[in-house]
């Protein structure tokens, strides 16, 4: 087999092999079962709980969970704004970087608390080390928050009737200290040994062969890169993200970083199987997600390895495939694999420039974000998938002549209302804001010309990608877009904010309402949800909702680009 292909197959296989035991471990944490590591972590967690006066065994209902989530997010948002707008005079700023403007700080703060990590600034010159550390903290916090709400939904899916769904802070702290922190330390150390810097010293200097003085930015990078990958954050330390040689030095670190992208999202599915004692359901969900993932991955790898058709038309051989915007040390297959893993999971870190992907490769990346639940972000990916399950359960329940029920709970008008709104939200945000920017550009091209370096189909794709990335809380970009201006900062900020919190509130509300309902034991007439047939149904619902709502937009962007040579 081609070694490039072998490389990505191995990356995927290793991820799944690691995710299964990790999922079991996460499931044990949320169930409150004993684990072998309790003797280390129990004292740490108890210290936090004692300091903050939190009673970790006080159970909350779904509304209390949401209040806890939203109120601490509000505090973090204000704290982040404060630091980012004042970091020029605050400590840990050896390079003397300036404070952020209000709109960039607004965008960046929302971006990081919403787990998006869309960066309308460049790490080397846009933030101080203090700023980087604060942003790194948010990478932990937003990931742990996503996992905690997911734990609430898992808990609600158990076979019983209850309002009590565990304690939010308990889930949150455990996700932080027992999953994200230890894994990040491991990954950071691996990066450290491969040459990623971890220092508080300012820029380094050397004199190049030509005799020029070259300044090289550095900083506490290894720590941040580890959590940016593991927490599906994606906000890089350096502007070029994991394409930067210090952020991602070699093929091995690339593999470690890429495994880290989808490790926890996949592990969460197996955690579900463990918590509900429904391993088969977990495998079906994993199967549906994996099929979707492969359907995006395979064409991307194919087109990137085949090379650009425009270059081929000029009779230039492309033995390495499409290498525009890609790093030679990774090659097209590993870059394509990264591009898809990072977009399906709402991570958004990049090791190549997505703007330079072949048209259908770029479309696959966009589709990954439009669906946003083939694995999805840590915790929140499953919540998106949950909405599709509810809709699929409803339609297929009717199809077999029974009031739809999922895991013993009847799905009725109220849940359908929420599920429909949430399913609508993502296309609504993406399409309406892309429409707004298209409208502005089309009617006043002079004022807005600076936005697009490549007007035409690709420029449309850049705008579509930006809002898709914001709404999916992904954070990657088609970087041809001039997005560091108030219009993009503010609109993307709004989209990220809505795109983060409503899709959390909706599923938690549905799960909470369902948990309160009477539990109906399974009978022969019950539609089983852990079957391949149901898996196909969920897949069809996802494909149809994503394909149907985005098809015209994609036709005008990447599809037109592909067909118009």
């Amino acid at each position, binding site marked *: 087999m081609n070694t490039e292909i072998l490389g990505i197959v191995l990356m995927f296989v290793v991820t799944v092999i690691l995710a299964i035991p990790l999922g079991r471990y996460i499931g044990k944490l949320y169930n409150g079962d004993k684990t072998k590591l309790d003797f280390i972590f129990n004292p740490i967690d108890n210290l936090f709980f004692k300091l903050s006066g939190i009673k970790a065994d006080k159970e909350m209902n779904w509304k209390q969970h949401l209040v806890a989530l939203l109120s601490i997010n509000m505090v973090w948002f204000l704290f982040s704004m404060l630091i980012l707008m004042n970091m020029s005079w605050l400590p840990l700023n050896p390079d003397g970087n300036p404070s952020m403007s209000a709109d960039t700080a607004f965008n960046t703060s929302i971006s990081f608390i919403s787990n998006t990590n869309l960066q309308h600034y460049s790490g080397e010159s846009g933030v101080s080390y203090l700023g980087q550390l604060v942003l790194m903290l948010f990478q932990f916090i937003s990931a742990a928050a996503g996992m905690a709400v997911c734990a609430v939904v898992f808990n609600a899916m158990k076979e019983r009737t209850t309002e009590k769904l565990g304690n939010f802070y308990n889930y949150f702290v455990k996700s932080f200290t027992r999953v994200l922190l230890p894994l990040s330390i491991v990954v950071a150390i691996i990066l450290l040994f491969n040459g990623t810097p971890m220092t508080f010293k300012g820029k380094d200097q050397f004199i190049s062969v030509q005799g020029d003085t070259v300044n090289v930015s550095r900083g506490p990078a290894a720590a941040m890169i580890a959590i940016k990958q593991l927490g599906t954050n994606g906000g890089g330390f350096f502007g070029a993200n994991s394409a930067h040689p210090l952020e991602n030095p070699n093929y091995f670190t690339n593999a470690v970083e890429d495994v880290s992208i989808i490790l926890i999202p996949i592990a969460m599915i197996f955690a579900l199987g463990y918590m509900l004692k429904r391993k088969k359901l977990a495998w079906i969900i994993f199967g549906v997600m994996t099929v979707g993932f492969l359907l995006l991955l395979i064409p991307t790898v194919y087109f990137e390895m085949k090379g650009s058709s425009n270059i081929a038309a000029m009779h230039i051989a492309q033995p390495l495939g499409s290498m525009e915007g890609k790093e030679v040390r990774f090659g097209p297959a590993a870059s394509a694999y990264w591009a898809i893993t990072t977009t399906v999971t709402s991570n958004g870190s990049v090791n190549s420039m997505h703007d330079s992907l072949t048209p259908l490769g770029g479309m696959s990346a966009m589709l990954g974000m439009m669906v946003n639940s083939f694995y999805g972000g840590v915790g929140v990916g499953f919540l998106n998938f949950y909405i599709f399950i509810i809709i699929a359960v*409803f339609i297929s329940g009717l*199809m077999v002549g029974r009031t739809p029920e999922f895991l013993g709970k009847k799905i009725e008008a109220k849940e359908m209302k929420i599920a429909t709104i949430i399913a*609508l939200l993502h296309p609504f945000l993406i399409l309406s804001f892309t*429409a707004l920017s298209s*409208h502005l550009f089309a009617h006043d091209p002079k004022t807005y010309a600076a936005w697009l370096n490549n007007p035409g189909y690709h420029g449309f794709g850049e705008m579509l990608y930006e809002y898709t990335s914001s709404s999916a809380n992904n954070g990657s970009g088609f970087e041809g877009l001039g997005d560091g201006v108030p219009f993009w900062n503010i609109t993307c900020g709004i989209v990220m904010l809505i795109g983060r919190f409503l899709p959390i509130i909706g599923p938690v509300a549905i799960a909470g309402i369902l948990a309160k309902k009477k539990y109906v034991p399974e009978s022969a007439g019950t539609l*089983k949800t852990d079957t391949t047939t149901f898996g196909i149904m969920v897949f*069809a619902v996802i494909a149809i909702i994503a394909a149907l709502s985005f098809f015209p937009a994609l036709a005008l962007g990447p599809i037109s680009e592909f067909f118009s040579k």
Partner: protein
Amino acid sequence: MKKSSNKLFEPALVKEAFKQSFIKLDPRIMFRNPVMFTVEIGTAVMLAVCIWILLGDKTQGSFVYNLIVFFVLFITLLFANFAEAIAEARGKAQADSLRKTREETPAKKIVNNKIEIVNSSLLKKGDLFFCETGDMIPMDGEIIEGLATIDESAITGESAPVIRESGGDKSSVTGGTKVLSDKITVRVTTEPGESFLDKMIALVEGASRQKTPNEIALTILLAGFTLVFVIVCVTLKPFADYANTPITIAAFISLFVCLIPTTIGGLLSAIGIAGMDRALRANVITKSGKAVETAGDLDVLLLDKTGTITIGNRKATNFWQANNVDENIFIEACVLSSLADETPEGKSIIELGEKLDVKGEMKQNISRLSSHISQYIQFTAETRSSGINMDDLRIRKGAFDSIKNLVIKAGNIFPDETTERVKLISSNGGTPLVVSQNENVLGVIELQDIIKPNIHERFERLRKMGVKTVMVTGDNPLTAKFIAEKAGVDDFIAEAKPEDKMNYIKKEQQGGKLVAMMGDGTNDAPALAQADVGVAMNSGTQAAKEAGNMVDLDNDPTKLIEIVEIGKQLLMTRGTLTTFSIANDVAKYFAIVPALFIASIPGLQSLNVMKLHTPESAILSAVIFNAIIIPLLIPLALRGVAYKPIGASALLRRNLLIYGLGGVIVPFIGIKLIDLLVSLWF
């Protein structure tokens, strides 16, 4: 009733439905159906565009093309209205034919103990009337005095007359039925215009039709899909501006109408009405659409043994004489002892005796001996035996222990082989009757319940639907267990008292189950009310009928099974047509999207996989397909998707294949065919 036509489109009904299709265009009525309401708005916009072109606009394409788009959308609306109207008309026709049975008849109203002839329509609730042989019963009511045989064939289609009497559980009479013999005094139980039938007609006609919970949830989902496509179509305008691609209003509206789920949106209410109509065709009056829907979800059915699982009553199936007793003498004694026995069991003993008497010898013996009978001993609860005295012979037949007492008291021995036989019969679900002559055991008669043929398969079918069946019987647990096993029910309640049913229902409901039961007596009323689906027999008491949410005109206990299937069909039809409707969108996209952009982006020709002729023909073909699929599916909506008890997953796979995959493929073919035709002009 039963013979009523099953044709879907009676000319008279079609005419009425056609008229209604136009009346229903009223936006105030349309508003109830969000999907079709948006189509109506689109149609109005197209009309405005046509007028605009006549006034001189040049940007929207030819007048004829726009007019055709308008026309097709208008037809789409009419088709959807027609679907609802024909369902209503059919339901109404069905109800009318029931109502006809109660045309105005003279009634013998009792006023101050005197009979006054008044018109039946003047009878009020609480009035008393009198009926005798040959009279038509003028109103629904409850017999307060007397007993009569009544011909109910006008309602049930059953020609065998039934007996209705005061006091018992069979005290209800229905207007329009005829008294064949005897006299009864009846109290009117409903106000004119408020009978169950009147309520049902109102439900079908839509005046008081409320959406059922599932229908509401589905409407929300469909509204959601409609909204997605509002967003898709509205945002397409700036996208097209960006790409410098002018799109005509006709193209926008066509794209929108094609994408929103008009197929299911147009057929949704027709499906609901047709469900109630199917119930009515099965001679079940439902008090709400919800009850039919709930029936599809039932988990537990409580069924009375007698009449549902077994045919009528127990029957004698065998004579087992004791050792040293001549078979013929034993059978003669059995028959003699039963001559005066009016119970169905007694009659069956005589029947069996006559059947075994091939040569006719015994008949002669009996007729000779019967003249010697000096005394008939009636059955009493105390002796638990009956029999005859004849010359110096005392023949008794009765329960095992009562005869055993008799025998042992007289100092005789109760034969072992008979004891064995009695045990064997009991454990086989039968009832043993021991026969003695002068306190000596002659043998034992075996009585068996006759389980209805095919009932086992029906229960199997229910089990595959996930419905648990529970047999309710007054029998002892041993007998009940045997019959339960033999008939294939999942559980039984033996020696059942009315409160046992109630407790069982409550217990199941606490476990989250939906329970249905059928009942007729006043003491069934609380349980009927407690059950999620309570089906009262039309012959039952008024209290029972008030308590249940369905009334079965045929008084057929197996009707519950049919009701479950009707409910399931209703939900399935909705689900499959929704899937079909949404799956259609794939092909419609491939028809319309290339058509929108081909002019300015020639590369998108590659998306025109159906190779449709021109953008205009592609758009027209898509909207025409979208319109004609509605009437094509009306028969399916009215008849319902066939329910196959093959397990939920298999059923899903089947329906997903037919309506999901079919829904993707069919429009590709349909649109291409229409395009071949349309391309002759466009």
